[in-house]
């Protein structure tokens, strides 16, 4: 189905489009961002500088970006998917040569007014490309090996480039989001079963071989894996952050220690309290009630995205919406698991809440595509 087949006349046009926005989703995004402003204000010791104020400005910019993207018909974005993907791959390759390495591992290009992280952009453009690919691909070829291999390459190429940065968190996110999208597109489940089985087998083999003659990795590599998986075994090194994070969470209790009363974050026991570990501050100061509320807001965003995807009959729209929902889900799921000590510490920020420009702009752009799909859905 090409865009010519849409009944264009039945979709809203001009400024009236704004009335057809997915308002619940918009309000949810504003609420989540609001939580972020509050927490950034708190971790700065009750000050809008240095974090809350720039974050508010960026969110305003993000809202503008989302609305602009939403106004553009969804088929334009589908046609742009390959171009966008290609552009982000070029950017990824160029940061390899020209980029600067930030605090963590992500590489960025300084655009003057902001730092562009190509790996953030790639998360969305890859989802767009895969959605467009399955929109284009005749249904009966979906599970044919050759046509399965192609999207796998689309996924592995950016994953590999990001891993070289080296940004483990983002590459895992890319891999998971891409795989998720392929599953949603209807690729036969046996492929996934095979990949999962192979992965489990490989991991088992690696661990089983430890200490035997055919050991697959070097000893120091095993030790690195050990601390990665169980930071508590190194309480003053890698485990320090995760221990402090759990203490902050736990000391929050039911209702928390009160706004700006969190001792763990205020006294700097928490690492990266304005970025990756901002959820711990929330949970410390507002307790289980606060933490659960944010989790519920995130879950509602996912729910509204899925509803949007199910309402549309356009394949690209539904796939891209679901893909963005998965990406968004992976963001907060990995981040929260990390701060709660369920997952190893990989640098993944809390979406819409953590301080950071390009991640927020890219996400708002992505939600713009979701809005566009909602506005321009075939009626």
């Amino acid at each position, binding site marked *: 189905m090409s865009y010519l087949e849409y009944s264009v006349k039945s979709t809203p046009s001009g400024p009236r489009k704004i009335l057809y926005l997915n308002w619940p989703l918009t309000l949810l995004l504003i609420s989540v961002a609001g939580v972020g402003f509050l927490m950034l204000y708190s971790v700065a010791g009750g000050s809008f500088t240095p974090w809350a104020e720039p974050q508010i400005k960026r969110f305003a910019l993000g809202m503008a970006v989302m609305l602009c993207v939403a106004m553009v018909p969804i088929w334009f974005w589908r046609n742009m998917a390959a171009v966008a993907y290609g552009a982000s791959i070029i950017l990824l390759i160029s940061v390899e040569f020209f980029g600067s390495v930030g605090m963590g591992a992500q590489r960025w290009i300084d655009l003057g007014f902001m730092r562009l992280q190509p790996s953030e952009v790639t998360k969305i453009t890859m989802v767009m490309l895969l959605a467009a690919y399955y929109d284009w691909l005749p249904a009966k070829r979906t599970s044919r090996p050759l046509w399965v291999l192609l999207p796998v390459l689309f996924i592995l190429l950016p994953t590999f480039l990001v891993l070289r940065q080296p940004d483990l968190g983002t590459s895992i996110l890319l891999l998971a989001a891409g795989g998720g999208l392929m599953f949603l597109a209807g690729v036969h489940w046996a492929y996934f079963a095979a990949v999962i089985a192979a992965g489990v087998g490989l991991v088992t083999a690696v661990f089983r071989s430890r200490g035997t003659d055919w050991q697959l990795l070097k000893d120091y590599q095993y030790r690195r894996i050990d601390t990665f998986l169980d930071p508590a075994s190194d309480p003053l090194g890698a485990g320090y952050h995760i221990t402090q994070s759990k203490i902050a969470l*736990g*000391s929050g*209790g039911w209702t928390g220690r009160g706004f700006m009363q969190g001792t*763990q974050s205020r006294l*700097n*026991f928490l690492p990266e309290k304005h970025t990756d570990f901002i959820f711990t501050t929330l949970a410390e100061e507002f307790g289980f009630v606060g933490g659960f509320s944010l989790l519920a807001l995130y*879950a509602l965003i996912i729910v509204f995205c899925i509803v949007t995807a199910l309402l549309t009959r356009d394949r690209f729209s539904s796939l891209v919406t679901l893909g963005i929902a998965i990406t968004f889900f992976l963001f907060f799921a990995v981040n929260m*698991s990390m701060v709660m000590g369920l997952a190893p510490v990989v640098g993944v920020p809390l979406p819409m809440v953590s301080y950071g420009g390009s991640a927020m702009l890219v996400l708002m752009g992505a939600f713009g595509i979701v809005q566009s799909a909602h506005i321009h859905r075939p009626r």
Partner: protein
Amino acid sequence: MRRNPRELSIMQRKTSRRALFVGGLQLAFAGGLAMRMRYLQVDQADQFRLLAEENRINIRLIPPARGKIFDRNGRTLAQNVPSYRIVIVREDAGDVDAVVANLSKLVDLDPEELNRALAEMKRSAPFLPITLADQVSWEDVSRIAVNAPALPGITPEVGLTRVYPRGSDFAHVVGYVGPVSDYDLSRIEDPEPVLRIPRFQIGKVGLEAKSEDLLRGKAGAKRVEVNATGRVMRELDRREGQPGADLQLSVDADLQGYVQARLGQESASAVVIDCETGDLRAISSSPTFDPNLFVRGISVADYRDLTENTYRPLASKSVQGTYPPGSTFKMITAMAALEEGLIGPDDTVYCPGHLEVADRRFHCWRRGGHGHVDLQNSLKQSCDVYYYDLALKVGIDKISAMARRFGLGVRHDLPMSAVARGLAPDKAWKQQVHKQDWLIGDTANASIGQGYMLASPLQLAVMSARLATGRAVVPRLIKSIDGVETPTGAGESLGLNENNLRQLRRAMYAVSNDRRGTAYGSRIIEDAFRMAGKTGTSQVRNITAAERAAGVINNRDLPWNRRDHALFVCFAPFDRPKYAVSVVVEHGGGGSTAAAPVARDVMLQALYGETPPLAAYPSKDRGRIKAQQERLERERPRYDTPESGRA
């Protein structure tokens, strides 16, 4: 590419199914996160809350103010005065090297300490103060204050340090404090946390060390909130400690000062004890040293001077020095014989100048002998043969038992360092320590305070006080603790025959008042303050038969450390004893010439409470005494420090 609408709708339904499945998975995962959050925040909240408090709350100790020490008249012997040290905070200083360079133009900095401080600075957090110089004078502090703009990050900090206003007079009594060393910590079982405060001072020697528990007090504590790097954010609360107890000593600081001055640079010691209460009015040892040097940290050169001095200034000779008591012991031998009823005061012994005991000849100090002597004559002239004879009749065990009743060979419990027990030997002791039988010759030696017999000046003073009163006077150094009087040392009656005591006292009176008495030259003329005493000259070498034949070498011709010790014990006034005094001059020669004059001067000073009138002295000595009084008046340090009102 044309699409098959039917196939497409099948695919869309599949996508919808899978979307619901994936959505379900996502919500399930979110549910799992919520469960985990509940587990951490609700089930384990108390534990994590505790950990968070442990993180942020640090307990800092507030060192207690050490108790002060006063003399019996409220004069300060040890006090705490503010002391200044210069600290630098790296993050405030900015360019540390430039600031330190500026500082060294104003204040003399010890390069060694400076290097240590700079090294410490590199290791510690930038906000922690590092000490650049300790014990800085007020002038230096004001110079720094004036130049503060050029010295960012430099602040003078005030602390308390121990000062002994009477300096060397009380070095052996009060002792001194110093910073806690690793050795100190290793000796104390379960040391209090306050001891780990850097630069915290504890008593090292003397009363400061022995009464540490009283003087130290209880540390206060403040709870402070710290951040992850240890910087103090605010004080949460504060519990004040309890300052140490103030101690008042029985010692009279002015008398002590006089005694120290009178002993001068002689290697000697003197003890003045109050016969009525056991109060130690003076307890001196010379030469002495300035304890303030140790508080500040004594230099290696100064310390070597003290340790290598033959006269052992660091030793507290009055309590830890033990000497053969010599003839001052004769009262004990006599008392033992009198109590046993083996002799009467008027029974005489013939002294030919020596006595054969078990094939060995024991000499009297007078070669020609004293002829027939009774108790009074024997003591007055210090005849040795008389006492050999008594001792052989009484036996060593009874003599030593009597010695112990008079406080010899027993440890007096004083809060001073290394209080010696001395030795009153008996047969069992020799068997146990030397694995030898007691010989009859040992008894003869012991009877005149030689041989194994050892006593400290303190014990000799106690012995004199007990002779003077007939009571078991116990020495007392601490008069009151925080204003609460401690029990006096008046003591119970010794249960001795009063008549025997009277006979002995009368004999001692003769020693210093009879024309033929050995201490006649050191008598007191003032009738109200007549003194009874006994000289002692104890050998530190054996006189061989050959030397005796050739004529005993005069003390003056011997090297210092081979000369006899000079001793004197006394009490006065004779009829109502107030003070007992003992003086030991190490290797001073004869007791009557080296020790008795000192004891007499000290006794008069104590009795008058000020410089005694010349009328108390024999008229032919007055010129010499006047010159001596004037010299001491000149040499004695004047203390015009503000005195405490405490009495």
